């Protein structure tokens, strides 16, 4: 429903369009970073590293716009949740873009190596992470709460696939000789993709809060009894 004070609607619209622009740029950076790795394209790696500055600037712009809305219009209810979620989303997108830069930097180093690369195992990980990110963004733009809530399941699959890739790459480290460095780069790439999945889940959780005022963060932990939490903690430790 439009606000009586149209300037408020304009400010909200401006905030959302900056978030969408940042999301689009972040997805593009991630895709290019992985393509740079797979196709050994050093120029594409450099593009990703350069574009990250624009993502950083968009994060600051979104923070600025959000703060301005809080100051000028004192939003409440769904407006307040939208502003808070947009600012948190910008933070998560900035971190995703940082991971894309990490991947691009590793790709740059790997491009210089003449050895054959085991990048085939990275592609399915990226596909899973990309789907998570796409669904997280849809849960924000379309108000699709179901998508936001289901991200945890997809992330669990990504985590499992990530562990398998790490196990495989690690098992080859001892016998890799001079190729060990390349394997380590791929381990870090895999780690970045796994973290991107976590950040997509964060975005989806925030979108659920925005759409329905429900806080689903740490729901798994909250549903555990105290005893289970202690057991889980000791297992982690």
């Amino acid at each position, binding site marked *: *429903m439009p606000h009586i004070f149209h300037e408020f609607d304009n400010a909200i619209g401006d905030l959302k369009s900056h978030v969408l622009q940042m999301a689009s740029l972040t997805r593009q950076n991630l895709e290019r970073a992985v393509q740079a790795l797979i196709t050994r394209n050093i120029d594409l790696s450099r593009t990703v590293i350069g574009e990250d500055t624009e993502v950083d600037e968009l994060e600051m712009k979104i923070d600025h716009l959000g703060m301005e809305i809080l100051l000028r219009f004192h939003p*409440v209810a769904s407006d307040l949740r939208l502003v808070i979620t947009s600012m948190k989303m910008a933070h998560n997108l900035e971190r995703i873009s940082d991971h894309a830069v990490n991947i691009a930097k590793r790709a740059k180093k790997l491009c210089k190596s003449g050895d054959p690369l085991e990048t085939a195992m990275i592609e399915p990980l990226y596909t899973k992470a990309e789907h998570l990110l796409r669904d997280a963004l849809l849960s924000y733009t379309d108000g699709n709460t179901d998508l936001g809530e289901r991200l945890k399941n997809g992330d669990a699959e990504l985590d499992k696939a990530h562990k398998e890739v790490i196990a495989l790459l690690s098992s080859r480290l001892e016998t890799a000789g001079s190729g060990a460095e390349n394997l380590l780069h791929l381990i870090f790439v895999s780690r970045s993709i796994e973290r991107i999945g976590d950040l997509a889940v964060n975005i989806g959780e925030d979108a659920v809060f925005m759409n329905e005022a429900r806080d689903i963060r740490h729901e798994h932990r909250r549903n555990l009894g105290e005893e289970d939490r202690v057991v889980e903690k000791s297992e982690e430790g």
Partner: protein
Amino acid sequence: MVNPVQDTAIHIDNVCFAYSGKQALHDVSLEIPSHKITAFIGPSGCGKSTLLRCINRINDRIAGARITSGTVRIHEIDIYRKDIDIQELRRRVGMVFQKYNPFAKSIYDNVVFGLKIAGMTKRSELDAAAEAALTGAALWDEVKDRLHSSALGLSGGQQQRLCIARAIANEPDILLMDEPCAALDPLATLKIEELMLELKKKFTIVIVTHNMAQASRCSDRTAFMYLGKLIEYGDTLQIFRNPSDKQTEAYISGAFG
């Protein structure tokens, strides 16, 4: 719509109210908790002031205005019972209005006015009560050296706090405030709001306000009214974070109409 709360000071049950046959409140029910601040919000003409004025029967002064059905109980006593002493009711339910209205008398005489009417004559008792009320209204330090000066020489914010002192001098249980800051500047408004948070330790406060920020800053519970009906009533943070009714959301978000 009834929201049971603990330590209820005021029970409003199915109240309908009309001004000369024109229905102003439709079947309003809510329970107002003790020692909390409850805010009535809503657009002009929604019935929030009418509802507030039902709590001390000040509407009785208007010809043709009356509750047509339902009850208002204060600490379980039906205040519309025929044997209710109206003077005693208004002593127990003090009221502060939008336009501060001190009498054209000294500061001191304003504060002890109600006490004298109630029969208090001993100077020492009146002095002690005046000091306690002015202290309670956070005004004592500002006026203690000029208690016998005209109340009309005080600033707007001070005059409103004097009216609060005058109301609490009678040691009421409940304080009704009808847009108490509407005529005050932002700093005087903040002083009244700060005072309200202190006063709720001793009194149950019900406030009518058009100021959404004031309702969200000060009140514990908020009731949104529209066209004489109670649309939503609940915890203030919940109302401002995630109201359950679309009309409430539209009003507090500035998207109404």
